[in-house]
C-alpha cells in the first residue's frame, strides 16, 4: 500500500476534518480570522489527524468522536508553528509569509493563543478525561523541550542523547499522542493503545531526524527557508554533531561562530559541504531508518493488516520534503 493510497482511502474523512479545522479557526475579529486562515491554508500533510484515523481502526471508528482529538491535535501543531516563527524570527514558512511577517509579532502571539484555546475547547467537547490528560501532558513536555532547545542553543558540547531527548519532546511526543488518542477515543484494547503510542513515538523520532537531514541537503526553494538555518540559529542537530566529531576544521568553524554569533559570520555553504563530505547525511539516514524499523516492530501486537501504518512510517523515514 502506497502513501497516496492511504490518503485516497481516507480522503472523505480528511476533507471532513479539514472543514472542522476551518470551522474551529474562525473568529469574529477579522484580522484574527485572516491570520488563522492564513496558517491553515499554508497546508501541511495533516499527518497528525491521519495518525488519529489510522489508529482508530483498532477500535470503534467513529469520525464524530475522532474529530474531537484529530482537530485539536492539528490546531495545537498550528499554534506552535505560529509561535515558533516568532521564536525563530522567521519571515517564511513553506515558502509563504508567516503571520508575524504578514502582520506582526503580537498578532502571531494572540493568534497562537486563540488557536490553543479553540483546541482545548474542542477536546472538552468529547468529554473524555483521559484525552485531556494525554493532550495536556504532551503540550507541557513539548514546551519544556522547546525551552531545553533554547538552553542548548549555541552550545557546542553536546551528545547524541541530548539531541534525542530534545527531538523526543519537540516532535515525537505529539505524533505519539496522535496515535494514542486515536486508539483511546475509539476504545481500543489497552495493549493496542500501548503499541500505537510506542509506534507514534518512533515515527516521530524518524520524522524529526529526517527533517534535520533535509536542512542540510535541501535547497532554499525546497525547504521554504535557507539551507542550514538550524545551525545558523545555533541548533546543533545530529548531522552536525556527527560531522563535527569527524572534521576538526569544521568543529573549529562552528565553535568560533557559536562562541560569538553576534559578531562572527558562518560560511554556511562551506559548512554544509563539509558536513556532507563526512558521511553525516548517510549516518543520520541510518539513524532515521533504525527508528522506522522500531516503529514497524512496535506494531506486532496489533491484529489484522498493519500495512498502512508501516507505509507511513517508511514514507516518513525516506521523504524528500
Amino acid at each position: 500500500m502506497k502513501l497516496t493510497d492511504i490518503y485516497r482511502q481516507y480522503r472523505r474523512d480528511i476533507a471532513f476534518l479539514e472543514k472542522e479545522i476551518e470551522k474551529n479557526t474562525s473568529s469574529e475579529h477579522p484580522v484574527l480570522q485572516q491570520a488563522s486562515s492564513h496558517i491553515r491554508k499554508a497546508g501541511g500533510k495533516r499527518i497528525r489527524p491521519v495518525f488519529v484515523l489510522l489508529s482508530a481502526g483498532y477500535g470503534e471508528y467513529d469520525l464524530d468522536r475522532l474529530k474531537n482529538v484529530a482537530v485539536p491535535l492539528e490546531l495545537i501543531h498550528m499554534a506552535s508553528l505560529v509561535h515558533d516563527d516568532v521564536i525563530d524570527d522567521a519571515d517564511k514558512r513553506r515558502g509563504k509569509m508567516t503571520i508575524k511577517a504578514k502582520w506582526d509579532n503580537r498578532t502571531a502571539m494572540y493568534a497562537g493563543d486563540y488557536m490553543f484555546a479553540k483546541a482545548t475547547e474542542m477536546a472538552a467537547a468529547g468529554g473524555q478525561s483521559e484525552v485531556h490528560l494525554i493532550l495536556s501532558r504532551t503540550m507541557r513536555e513539548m514546551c519544556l523541550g522547546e525551552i531545553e532547545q533554547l538552553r542548548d542553543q549555541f552550545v557546542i558540547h553536546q551528545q547524541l542523547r541530548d539531541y534525542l531527548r530534545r527531538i523526543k519532546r519537540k516532535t515525537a511526543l505529539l505524533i505519539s499522542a496522535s496515535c494514542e488518542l486515536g486508539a483511546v477515543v475509539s476504545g481500543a484494547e489497552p495493549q493496542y493503545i500501548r503499541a500505537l503510542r510506542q509506534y507514534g513515538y518512533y515515527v516521530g523520532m524518524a520524522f524529526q531526524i529526517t527533517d534535520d537531514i533535509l536542512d542540510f541537503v535541501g535547497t532554499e526553494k525546497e525547504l521554504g527557508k535557507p539551507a542550514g538555518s538550524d545551525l545558523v540559529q545555533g541548533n546543533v542537530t545530529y548531522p552536525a554533531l556527527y560531522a563535527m566529531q569527524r572534521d576538526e576544521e569544521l568543529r573549529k568553524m562552528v565553535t568560533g561562530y557559536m562562541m560569538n554569533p553576534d559578531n562572527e559570520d558562518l560560511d554556511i555553504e562551506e559548512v554544509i559541504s563539509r558536513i556532507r563530505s563526512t558521511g553525516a547525511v548517510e549516518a543520520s539516514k541510518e539513524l532515521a531508518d533504525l527508528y522506522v524499523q522500531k516503529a514497524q516492530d512496535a506494531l506486532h501486537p496489533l491484529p489484522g493488516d498493519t500495512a498502512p501504518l508501516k507505509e507511513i512510517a517508511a514514507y516518513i523515514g525516506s521523504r524528500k520534503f
Partner: protein
Amino acid sequence: MTAIYDNVHTLHRLTSEFRHRVTHPYVQRFIPEPVLNPLQAGVLLNVLEGKQLNEDQRVSTALAALLVQTAMDIHDEIGNIEVTNEADRKQRQLTVLAGDYLSSLYYTILAESGDPDFISVFSASVQEINEAKMRMKYSTSMREAFPHYITARSSLAVHTAASCGQSSLAPAIRQLFLLQAAAGEVTDVLFEDVQPLVAAQRENMLSAAYFRFKSEAAEAGESVPGFLMYEAERLRTLVEHRSG
C-alpha cells in the same frame, strides 16, 4: 499590592502554589518571575465558593485561571521591535515559551483535577480575551479600546462567576479590574498599540470605574461579597493618592 480574602489560609496556599509552578530556573535567568495578581486571586476564590467544591478543587481551579492569565500577560510583552543581539533574542524567545509553558500547566492542572468542566469555561474565556486584545490593538481611540481592555482583564473572573451561578456579579467585577488599572496596580502594555494616547482622557475614564462599580454593586444587591467592596474602597484610595 495588597488584597484581602476572608480565608487567608486558602489564599496563602494559592499564592505558594502559584509561585512554585511559575518558577523555572533557566527561564528566570532571562525574564522576571511572574507575579500573581492578588485581586484576581481573591475574586476567583470568592466566586468559586458559589460552587460545591472542596478547598483543593477551589485552589486548583483558581490556580489554573491565574496561570493562563499570566501566560497571556507574558505574551503581551512580545513587541515588534527588531532584536539585533543574541541576549535580546533569547529574552524574546523565552518570553514566548514561558507563556506557552504556563498555558500547558494551566491545562494540565485542570485535566488532573478530575473536574474538566472548567476547561470549556476557561477555553471560551481565553478566546474572548485574545479577540478583545486584537480589538484593542486595532482601536483608534481610548474610548473604543476601553471596553475591550476590561474584557481582557476580567473575562476569566467573569466567566468563572457565571459558571458558579453568580452572573449578577459580572458588571461589578468588570469595573473592579478597571479600577485596579486606574490605581496603577497592573501594567497596561495593552494600551501600547492604541492611538492616540491621551493620558488625561485615560485617567478620567479609569477613575470613573469606582462610581460605576458602586452602581453595579448596588444593582447586584446583597450578593456582592465583602471582599469586592473592600477592594473597591482600597483601590479608590490608591487612585486618589495617585492623582494627588
